[in-house]
């Protein structure tokens, strides 16, 4: 859409929303939120940007096909899930670092898992919306 107003607003919204998305992701273990909603917000940020500036521009920002985020996220989640297997533990057994990390709190495999979820959700949402917008 060719509107200066929207275009301008969207370029400021993008970093803000991404920040918010990561915020939601990281605090999910303590308060409502988490990888899924966080990922959705991040995706929405890009979608809004693409509505305003066209998909090509948004693609330029992401630098690769968003679908590629899916295997990356899946791989991350998978690694987090099966890491315990290498030490003889059951699938998805929580592995935790000894001490809490500042800001984030306790860091463990669950966090990496959630980040995997986050990436997958971003990849999925963007793939779907971009594909359909392109073929309209």
């Amino acid at each position: 859409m060719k509107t200066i107003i929207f275009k301008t607003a969207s370029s400021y919204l993008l970093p803000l929303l991404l920040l918010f998305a990561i915020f939601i992701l990281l605090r999910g273990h303590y308060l409502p939120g988490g990888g899924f909603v966080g990922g959705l917000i991040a995706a929405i940020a890009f979608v809004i940007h693409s509505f305003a500036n066209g998909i090509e521009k948004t693609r330029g920002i992401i630098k690769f096909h968003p679908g590629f985020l899916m295997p990356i996220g899946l791989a991350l989640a998978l690694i987090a899930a099966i890491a315990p297997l290498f030490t003889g533990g059951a699938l998805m057994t929580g592995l935790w670092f000894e001490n809490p990390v500042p800001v984030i709190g306790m860091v463990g495999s669950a966090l990496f898992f959630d980040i995997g979820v986050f990436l997958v959700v971003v990849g999925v949402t963007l793939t779907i919306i971009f594909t359909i917008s392109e073929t309209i």
Partner: protein
Amino acid sequence: MTEISIAILSTLGAVFIFLAAVGVVRMPDLYLRISVTTKAATLGIGLILIAAAFYFNDLSITSRVLAIILFMLLTAPVGAHMLGRASYFTGVKMWKNSEYDDLKGKYHPKTHVLSSEEEPDDVKKKV
């Protein structure tokens, strides 16, 4: 003291929202409805959110409330603009008592280019 300010803020907020609600029903055309609701609702929500900030009296919550308000102030008018513009394109009519329509004929129907030309006075006429 806090309680009273919360009560006042939330009442005002609710009333503004109520006004917006009545407005959206009562206003005779789409543009007026957009016009009414954007501000009434934004203001009303802002007030209620501030009431909440007062209530919790916590820095992180206050800052979050401010972030929401900021965000709404940023997006509400943009949304209104987009919807208004798109509606005009699709030929949503203005209220019969409307006085001017400077936008008439300025959109190129195919390319959606909006020109800035001022039309001759004889063309400019009441709707």
